[in-house]
């Protein structure tokens, strides 16, 4: 766990560590800048011997925003004090819905007493409901939501939007309170049913199905989830040409694909047990069904494509004897430039856990040198690669191979002078597959023993379970 003190100290020490590398004159200049800020008389007047009163007077919080800021702050304080750095732990879907700490509920209650639902303007309902839910004042939350619903005009789109917002408020609160929102969910279902009958709005129908599908997953009602996923698939099959080219469908097609993927979960596993080709074909079918277009020549996320051998100028710890990814081995190729420092520690732990569980798995981190932006001579690629090796393999002890490519680059003409690194061949080979769904990122590729890309996704805690499941299937498969 890092505290503010840690961050400040690490910065200071890092700063002073740089000084050691400077000669006397530059060292003087650096210190001069730093020490200038320490001239004591420039500091504003402050009391040295009396600590200010930092206790919080919630009665002085006049707005809902202040109250929610307080609960958020207390919650963050609580999480920061958690001795378990959660990003180093395997992902648990329930962690998003853990109950709020008692302190947060207590603060929420004290603050919520200032706001009487009957006289608070109805346009503040969303914040008020959120505060009531945090404070476990569920009855009040329901009454506020009901009042908002009563204030809706005859416009069915507005009614749908309000209902959807209410359901989201209850379902995605901590802990999830889907059961309290049951009457609203029922109304949402009724509205969607009306759309089914009169076919008035395909857009709202898809949105409604997807919301109800998500709610079903939260309460572990897989039967309902399947029902709504099926309905989304049915809508996808019946879309008109106008729907397909509309703006709303651009977003909805990913929702449809998600639902179809859920429906095909078992089929996916079965197909992967059979072959990567069958697995990829099923994905191709679902994706083309979602986007209503045939995907020619490629599969989403490069699934089913042949993985190009990696090329690198520097290999760590040793240059491989044969090509990577190696035939006859299951491999993970991870493009690592996106990720940095503390923000990615969860990824380091994910890699370590996977490597520990599957010792025979071949994991390769792929990087390319960055150079300096300035007009000074860039560092030697060997030097940059060496530093990368010291960091990932030496300090973080990642059980992987590191492949570093020296970046080709060009400089823009004066006065811009900017250095533009070209994408490495590795990057082009792995990220140039047509048909990749927009808005979805990937930095990791799972490759089977035949050198075929099984899947690509982000290396993160949330997708670790799915990745492990696929590796297990591949390990059991007799290729």
């Amino acid at each position, binding site marked *: 766990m890092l505290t503010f003190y*840690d961050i400040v*100290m*690490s*910065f*200071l*020490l*890092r700063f*002073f*560590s740089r*000084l*050691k590398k*400077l*000669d*006397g*004159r*530059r*060292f*003087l*200049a*650096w*210190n*001069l*800048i*730093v*020490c*200038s*800020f*320490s*001239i*004591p*008389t*420039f500091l504003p007047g402050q009391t040295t011997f009396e600590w200010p009163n930092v206790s919080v007077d919630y009665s002085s919080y006049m707005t809902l925003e202040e109250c929610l800021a307080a609960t958020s702050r207390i919650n963050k304080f609580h999480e920061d004090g958690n001795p378990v750095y959660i990003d180093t732990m395997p992902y648990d879907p329930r962690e998003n819905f853990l109950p709020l700490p008692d302190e947060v509920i207590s603060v929420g209650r004290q603050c919520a007493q200032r706001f009487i639902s009957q006289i608070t303007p109805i346009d503040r309902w969303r914040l008020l409901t959120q505060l009531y839910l945090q404070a476990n004042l569920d009855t009040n939350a329901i009454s506020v939501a009901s009042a908002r619903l009563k204030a809706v005009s005859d416009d069915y789109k507005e009614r749908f939007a309000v209902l959807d917002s209410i359901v989201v408020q209850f379902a995605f609160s901590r802990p999830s309170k889907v059961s309290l929102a049951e009457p609203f969910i029922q109304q949402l279902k009724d509205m969607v049913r009306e759309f089914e009958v009169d076919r008035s709005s395909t857009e709202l129908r898809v949105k409604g199905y997807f919301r109800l599908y998500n709610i079903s997953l939260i309460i572990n009602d897989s039967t309902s989830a399947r029902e709504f996923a099926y309905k989304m698939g049915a809508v996808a099959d019946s879309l008109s040409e106008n729907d397909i080219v509309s703006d709303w469908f651009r977003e909805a097609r990913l929702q449809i694909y998600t639902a179809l993927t859920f429906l095909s979960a078992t089929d996916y596993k079965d197909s992967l047990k059979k072959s990567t080709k069958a697995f990829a074909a099923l994905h191709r079918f679902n994706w083309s069904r979602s986007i209503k277009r045939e995907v020619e020549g490629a599969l989403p996320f490069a699934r089913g494509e042949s993985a190009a051998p990696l090329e690198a100028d520097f290999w760590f710890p040793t240059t491989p004897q044969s090509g990577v990814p190696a035939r006859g081995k299951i491999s993970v190729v991870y493009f690592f*430039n*996106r*990720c*940095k*420092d503390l923000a990615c520690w969860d990824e380091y732990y994910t890699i370590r856990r996977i490597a520990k569980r599957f010792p025979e798995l071949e994991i390769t981190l792929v990087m*390319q040198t*960055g*150079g*300096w*932006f*300035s007009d*000074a001579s860039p*560092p030697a690629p060997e*030097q940059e690669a060496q*530093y*990368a090796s*010291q*960091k990932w393999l*030496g*300090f973080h002890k990642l059980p992987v191979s590191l492949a570093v490519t020296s970046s080709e680059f060009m400089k823009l003409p*004066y*006065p*811009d002078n*900017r*250095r*533009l*690194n070209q994408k490495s061949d590795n*990057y082009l080979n792995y990220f140039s597959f047509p048909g990749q769904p927009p808005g979805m990122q990937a930095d990791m590729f799972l490759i089977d023993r035949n050198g075929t890309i099984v899947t690509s996704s982000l290396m993160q805690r949330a997708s670790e379970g799915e990745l492990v499941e696929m590796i297990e299937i591949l390990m059991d498969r007799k290729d």
Partner: protein
Amino acid sequence: MYNEKIQKSKNNDFRLLRSSECQRISDEIRQYTTGGGLTSITIQGWWRGELRWARNRASLASDRRDAVVVVDRKPETFDRGIASTNQLDSLSLKSVVCSAERSARLNFDRVLPDFIVPAPTFETPQVSIWSDATYNMGATDRGRLVSSLTKAPEEKGMLSAGYLEILAAEFATTDEDGAVGYLTHTQAQLSLTVRHPQGAASGWAGLSSYDWSAIGAEALGSRAFDKCLASIEPVRIEPGRFTVILEPQAVAGLIGNLVQTFQRARAEEGKGPYSGGFDRSLGIWRSKLGLQIIDKRITLDHDPMNGQLGVLPHEGLRPVTWIRNGVLESLWYAHYRNFNDGRRASLRELNEGMPPSSFVAAYRMSGGQTSIDEMIATTSRGLLVTRFSNPILGLDSDSLLATGFTRDGLWLIEDGKISKAVKNMRFTESPLFVLNQVDQLGVPVPVFSPNPVQILPVIVPPIKSRDFSFTASTDAV
């Protein structure tokens, strides 16, 4: 960086530590270290004389000095520890070393090693910002000066208030071999306001420099007094767009914020006024470098070697031209910045290292030969602005729209003459628009630009500009 002058003037006083004293302290500290490893020592001393007055009477007079020793220890088997003291006796120096080493032991588990390729290195220029006139400005001299500055206002029944500060400081650091680098600098500032006792008028003048002799205290006193007398009984006029004559201090108030926005990183992320649009062929955001962004007569630059523009030296400090003849020529960037490597540089990276070009807060703006009197004579209807009250930049990050109030003297110009004093007004205007609507430029002069750390010299001309937007009138004086 050793300054001979200070040695001569310091023979009989103890306001600053001499280089030899810093060397002795450094050597003594090194004797107390245990556990081997590396030791860095920074000694920073300063002497400051102040005189603050209000309602024609002194309210604060000080003459203070201090010296702080910062010890940075890195024993061989531990991480770094830092401790400081302002007691220079042997026992205290020994204690501060112990404290730094204890801190190093405690820090052992805290620090994450970093593996960033060492940044390119840049030269540190030799800059002299020392003035004997400043250093020799004693408490008695300050008292006499302020007494004379308050005399005229008091005789006329006006109220004078102001602040006079003299500072001299030294910085000494040692390298791994124990050699001491030693640098001294001075700074002086004087600002004063003369107000009508009923709050009916206000006049201001001020100047800052490393050299007291360049400040001209008597002239500043007269200017503030005259402005106060000339701004009695102001009238309210309707806000709107006016031709304005901005005195240099007003120009600095408006342009100072502009200079600090010369950030390359923002421009290349497609943000701010210097972003030139997305280049689809290269997949990058272009900047407006090389494009004309303001009036062709204006050049904005900084040369740390220029005596009037000197700032404390740092690695990479070098002359820079931000805008040459209206064309954007440079933008600030940090040399740590990686580019186009698949990720965006973190905030820490962007802040790491000093800009290789120059301080962005000290600058010089080119001008012309038109005097303020000539500007007034050629104006049929307009406003003469003394200065602005803390302009706030950032109403709109793309246009740099700013807002604030005029203060300490605003006059209406009609038919080539100042016709009457005007009540202060709120302006809402972009400095970029102002610099694109320039009619006439005056001779650049230094202005008041103190800073908590050091004087950041600013040299700007008076400007006559068209269609300056005033959006409200205020009774505040």
